[in-house]
C-alpha cells in the first residue's frame, strides 16, 4: 500500500513536469495552429544550458531556471520572428516539416557545443531522498515536480488573470474577432511562441536533473509530448495537464509493477484507447468557433 502511494506521488510529480512542457506545446498550437516539432529540442537545449550554468558556475540547476527560462524565452521569440512568422498561415503539414527541420538544426548545434555523449546534472541532493512514514521519495523528483507545478501555476495565472492572458485566449478562440477588438494577433502569437518555448525550457532544466540526456533525446520527448497533447485534446491547456498526469502516473506505475522496458509503451496504448472513443481527445473541441464561419 505504501509502495503504491509512493509510486502514485512520484507519477504525479513526473506528470507535473510533463504538464509544464506540454502546456507550452498545446498553447502554441491553440493560438497559431502550428505543431512545434522542435519543442523537445528546445527542452534538451535548456537542459544543456542548465548543465553549463551548473558545471561552470556552480549554480543550482533548479534555481538556474530563473536564468534559463528568460534565455530560452528570448531564443523562442527570435525563432518565431525569423522562422515561424513567415510560415504562420502555411498549411499545417508544412509547419510540421519546417519545425522538424528546426529540431534537426538545434540538435546539430547542441552536438557541436556540448558533444554527443550522455550528460547528467548531479546537484548535491541528486542521490538523497526524503523518507517519512515508510515513503521513499528522491529529492530531485520532489523538488523538480514542485518547481514544475509552481511554474505551471504562474503560467495559469498569466492566462486567466492578465490582459495578456485574455488576449491570448481571445486569439486562440477566434483570431479574426480578436483582431476586430484591437488585439495585434501577430504580436500575441510571437509572445505565445516565446512563452511556450520558455515553458519547455523550464521543464528542460528540471528534466536535466531527473535523467541523463543526449542531444538526440528530443525525438523521444516530442513523441511523448505530442501523445500527451493529443490525448488531452489539441489546443486545450487543461487537457494537456490531464494528459500529462495520466502519462506520468501510467509510466511510473508500469515501470514499478510491470517492467521499466514497458514504461514508455503502455501510455501510448492508453492514448490509442481514448482516441478510439473520443477522437478529439479528452478535453478537445471538434471545431474552432471560426472554422464554421467565414
Amino acid at each position, binding site marked *: 500500500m505504501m509502495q503504491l502511494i509512493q509510486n502514485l506521488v512520484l507519477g504525479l510529480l513526473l506528470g507535473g513536469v510533463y504538464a509544464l512542457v506540454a502546456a507550452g506545446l498545446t498553447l502554441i498550437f491553440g493560438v497559431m495552429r502550428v505543431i512545434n516539432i522542435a519543442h523537445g529540442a528546445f527542452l534538451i537545449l535548456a537542459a544543456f544550458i542548465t548543465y553549463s550554468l551548473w558545471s561552470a558556475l556552480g549554480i543550482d540547476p533548479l534555481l538556474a531556471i530563473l536564468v534559463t527560462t528568460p534565455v530560452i524565452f528570448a531564443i523562442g521569440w527570435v525563432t518565431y520572428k525569423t522562422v515561424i512568422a513567415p510560415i504562420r498561415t502555411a498549411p499545417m503539414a508544412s509547419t510540421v516539416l519546417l519545425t522538424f527541420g528546426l529540431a534537426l538544426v538545434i540538435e546539430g548545434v547542441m552536438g557541436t557545443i556540448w558533444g554527443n555523449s550522455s550528460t547528467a546534472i548531479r546537484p548535491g541532493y541528486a542521490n538523497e531522498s526524503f523518507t517519512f512514514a515508510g515513503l521513499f521519495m528522491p529529492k530531485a523528483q520532489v523538488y523538480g515536480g514542485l518547481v514544475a507545478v509552481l511554474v505551471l501555476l504562474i503560467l495559469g495565472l498569466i492566462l486567466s488573470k492578465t*490582459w495578456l492572458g*485574455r*488576449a491570448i*485566449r*481571445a486569439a486562440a*478562440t*477566434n483570431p*479574426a*474577432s*480578436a*483582431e*476586430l*477588438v*484591437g*488585439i*495585434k*494577433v*501577430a504580436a500575441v502569437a510571437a509572445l505565445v511562441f516565446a512563452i511556450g518555448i520558455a515553458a519547455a525550457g523550464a521543464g528542460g532544466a528540471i528534466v536535466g536533473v531527473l535523467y541523463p540526456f543526449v542531444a538526440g533525446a528530443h525525438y523521444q520527448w516530442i513523441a511523448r509530448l505530442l501523445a500527451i497533447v493529443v490525448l488531452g485534446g489539441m489546443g486545450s491547456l487543461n487537457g494537456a495537464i490531464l494528459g500529462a498526469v495520466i502519462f506520468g502516473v501510467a509510466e511510473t506505475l508500469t515501470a514499478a509493477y510491470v517492467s521499466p522496458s514497458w514504461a514508455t509503451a503502455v501510455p501510448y496504448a492508453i492514448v490509442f484507447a481514448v482516441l478510439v472513443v473520443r477522437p478529439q481527445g479528452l478535453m478537445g473541441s471538434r471545431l474552432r*468557433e*471560426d472554422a464554421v*464561419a467565414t
Partner: protein
Amino acid sequence: MEDDARMARNRAPESVHPARGEPPALELRDVHASYGHIHALKGVSLHVSHGEMVALIGANGAGKSTVLRTISGLLRPRGGQVLLGGSRIDHLPPHRVVALGVGQAPEGRRVFPRMTVAENLDLGSFARADRAAVEADIDRVFRLFPRLKERLRQKAGTLSGGEQQMLAIGRALMASPNVLLLDEPSMGLAPMLVESIFRTIVEINRQGTSVLLVEQNALMALGVANRGYVLESGTIVLADTADGLRNNPRVQKAYLGIA
C-alpha cells in the same frame, strides 16, 4: 404594415449635411477585393456621412460581409481606397483601424464563448488607453443593454442568440467607435427581438455614432436607415435614400417580397 410604420417613426434623424468639402466619416472609392481567384468586390464606392445610418442590402454571397472586412482591415483590398474621415486606412491592420474609431460587430455574433460577458466587454476596450472613458462607455453599454449587466459573470457561449448579439454590439461600442459596422444583427432572431435590437441601434446612432448596417432583412434596415445601397455580385447597383429604395419597384420585387 403596422410594424413598418412603427420602425419609420423610430428612424434615425436626417443626417446633418456636412459643410461643403468636409470628408464623410467613412468612404469607399472603387474598392476591389478577392479571395484567391474569386473576385468578390468589383469596384464598390459608398460613403457614410457623420451621424448618418446607412444600410447595405443584398442577397447571400453579394459581398456585404466582404465590404465590412475590407473596411476593418481583415481583408486587404486589391484596388481602390478606404477613407476614414478623409484619411486612407486601406493598408492598416485591423487593430490600427479599431484604434482609429471603427467598431465592428461581426457576422454570426462572434463573441468569445468561453469568456464571461464582463471579459468580452473588457476586451472590446483592448486598444484603448483612456481608462476613465472606458468606465463611462461600459455604463453606456449597460444603459443600452440592461440584460448584459444582469449577466456579467455568465459565459458568453451560454447566452441566448439575442443576448449574444447585444454583447457583440456592446463589445464593438467598448472601442468607442465613430463608425459602427454591423453585420446582419437580425440574423436568426425572433421578430420581437429584432425590433428591440434595431431600436437600440437607432439609439446608438442618435447618440452620434455613424452606422453602416449590413442586412438581408431589407425591410427592417430601410426602416431605420437614412440612405441605402444595394449590392449585387460585388457591385453597387442602386444607391438612394431609404424611402427611395423602399419605393423602388426593383427593390420591392427582389428584397421586400412585394410583387
